[in-house]
């Protein structure tokens, strides 16, 4: 279901790193030998077999990351991102796989559009990319897209991301029909009659700044509706970019009641609150919006305890001129592929809010599981999906440093700790610093 351009499968020995695969219970300093893109041996003092050797003492070698929520902007807005630039950004961020959302121009709602993306990925993707197709035709929320044909053509899942499926009746039909495709629905939960024209979280900051509010209940009401429908139909679902404590509570209750629901959270919702909007920087404008400190704490708790199993960047590139406008006129969305690990390491791991092991699991195995993909593993016989991390390195986020075609990052100018030194994706060298 994932596609990348064909490259030579790597022969490499990574020597002396702290090998950390939390899901496999691995945490020790050793060498890892990769033969023809497959992990061949783990241990100390490994024979290099004339492989390329990466000296990695003092670094951490972990399963590479999986981003379940990326906007590659192709087709339609190749000025903002392409499959080549977006996957190069992913490789630089330590990702070995990404999933792209279908809200492109045109929308990925037919096997023809999906097929052209698959072909493009095979020609230009630096790391394997998968594509979600839309739930409804043109994401208009009126009629189901041909989910069966889309699944056969390689859709990894279905989503109208960017907008909700407003009709409860249609949502129910989508859940019913998705079951025969074996693919999951990934839902953008927003009750638009409550959020319409909202620019930021509704609370003390929006009241003071004068922005129309996008209240938490606009998200949680739709989360509750969709979880109720999933429970009724006995179908799984995935909740995109949760932002509100009330949504987390609804998710936790549904999971406890046996609903097969997974969820993701973004780095910006884990690191920032609506206080950041006081800067009026268009690069802190996103949908769903940054919420209160209590919401952030609830998201972090849910990430720790596994209620939210995946971190997703919701990488949303925007052209420079679209963001160089007053906050109110700016589009929603920020980039994230190249900064996710360092942002989370700096804002959560270093201050002691999240164990490194949990962060690595939620960036890798968690998102893979949400879509039924094989989680990256560091074990003999597994395809090499590896990221080499330098936890001592600091770097400054600058516009010129991005491989993405867009630079609408909320981290511009910030100095972060934690750098990606090497990414191996499906046995191929994707990035080396």
């Amino acid at each position: 279901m994932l596609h990348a351009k064909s490259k030579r499968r790597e022969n490499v020995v990574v020597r002396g790193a702290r090998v950390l695969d939390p899901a496999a219970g691995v945490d020790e300093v050793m060498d890892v030998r990769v033969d023809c893109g497959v992990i061949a041996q783990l241990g100390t003092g490994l024979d290099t077999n004339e492989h390329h050797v990466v000296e990695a003492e003092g670094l951490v070698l972990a399963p590479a990351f999986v981003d379940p929520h990326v906007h590659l902007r192709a087709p339609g807005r190749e000025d903002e991102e392409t499959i080549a630039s977006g996957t190069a950004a992913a490789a630089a961020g330590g990702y070995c796989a990404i999933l792209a959302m279908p809200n492109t121009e045109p929308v990925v709602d037919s096997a023809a559009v999906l097929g052209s993306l698959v072909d493009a990925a095979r020609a230009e993707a630096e790391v394997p990319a998968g594509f979600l197709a839309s739930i409804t035709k043109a994401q208009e929320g009126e009629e189901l897209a041909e989910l069966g044909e889309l699944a056969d053509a390689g859709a990894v899942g279905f989503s109208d991301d960017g907008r909700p499926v407003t009709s409860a009746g249609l949502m129910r039909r989508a859940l019913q029909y998705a079951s025969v495709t074996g693919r999951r629905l990934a839902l953008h939960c927003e009750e638009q009659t409550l959020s319409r024209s909202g620019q930021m979280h509704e609370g003390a900051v929006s009241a003071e700044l004068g922005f129309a509010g996008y209240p938490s209940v606009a998200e949680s009401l739709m989360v509750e509706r969709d979880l109720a429908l999933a429970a009724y139909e006995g179908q799984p679902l995935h909740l995109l970019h949760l932002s509100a404590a009330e949504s987390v509570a609804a998710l936790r209750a549904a999971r406890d009641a046996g609903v097969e629901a997974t969820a993701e959270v973004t780095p910006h919702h884990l690191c920032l609150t609506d206080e950041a909007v006081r800067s009026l920087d268009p690069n802190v404008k996103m949908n769903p919006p940054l919420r209160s400190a209590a919401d952030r704490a609830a998201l972090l708790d849910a990430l720790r305890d596994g209620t939210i199993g995946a971190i997703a960047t919701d990488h949303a590139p925007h052209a420079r001129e679209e963001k160089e406008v007053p906050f109110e006129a700016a589009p929603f969305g920020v980039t994230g592929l190249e900064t996710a690990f360092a942002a989370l390491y700096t804002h959560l791991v270093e201050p002691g809010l999240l164990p490194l092991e949990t962060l690595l699991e939620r960036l890798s195995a968690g998102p893979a599981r949400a879509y039924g993909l094989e989680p990256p593993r560091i074990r003999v016989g597994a395809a090499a999906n590896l990221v080499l991390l330098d936890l001592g390195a600091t770097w400054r986020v600058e516009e010129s440093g991005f491989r993405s075609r867009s630079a609408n990052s909320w981290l511009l100018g910030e100095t972060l700790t934690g750098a990606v030194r090497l990414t191996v994706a499906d046995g191929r060298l994707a990035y080396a610093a």
Partner: protein
Amino acid sequence: MTELRVMRETLPPPPEERRHLISVRDLGRDDVERLLATAASFERSLEREVKKLPTLRGRTVVNVFYESSTRTSSSFELAAKRLSADTMSIKAAGSAVDKGESLKDTALTLSAYDPDVIVIRHPQIGAPHLVARVTQARIVNAGDGKHQHPTQALLDLYTMQRATGRLEGLHVAIVGDVLHSRVARSLIQALELVGARTTLVGPPALLPRGMEAMGCELRTDVEAVADADVVYVLRMQRERMQAGANYVPSLREYTARWGITPERVRPGQLVMHPGPMNRGVEIDGRVADAAESLILEQVRSGLVVRMAVLYDLLTTGPAPVPAAAAMEEVA
């Protein structure tokens, strides 16, 4: 001559660096007090036959208005002229903005003339911040969307102080559409800064959730205005009351429940309104025209307060001509 000496000697020293007036949050209490004192001395100077002061001679003040405005744009223009600055006013209609030019490009174009101050009004929150980022000028926010209108708040404080002799402990009831009002947001912050007390009164949907965090009390019953020293009436923005918005069922019902009528103000209670008024909607004409109405005072205060703001912004940096000396030169 004497007058001008007094002014120089009694004014507190200006702050080290203050480049913009974008939000009341840019100000401390001493800034407000200094600005009000400066405005008072300008008011005295305007009593003279020749009203023009050479203080800002050689300085350039550009007014850019992306929204219609009568009192704010005219008072900024006149304020700059009274201080001998070169000034020009640009309105969005009929300019390159009509041809699709972005705010950034308009700002860059204007900044090519090296303006000392850009006064901007724009319908979108954050517009002055963008202009501040891309130009070297000092920015004065003359209203950005529903966010801020700091010179209105200053002129309102000035008017209240003149009418009551105090600001500390003053109780002001702000009545009406707080949700859409940049005037209310700026004024609430300014009143808090000077130790006054604020009560917001209006229909629930027009009192934003979270506003109590700004240090004011929220009330939905119009009787709450009775305790206030000043009743500050906000404009009911008809364009916000379009069908389907349902903030209130109708303007008629708004007027019946929250309109400020002679029966709802006590004798001696002062009434203010930022204008333009909808007589018969949020304010009864009899209240607007009564002796207790400060509405025209507010307009008059606008001129001297905006003079004070321009003077203050331009005499804190490296001024080629010391302002006070320049004034003596005229005297």
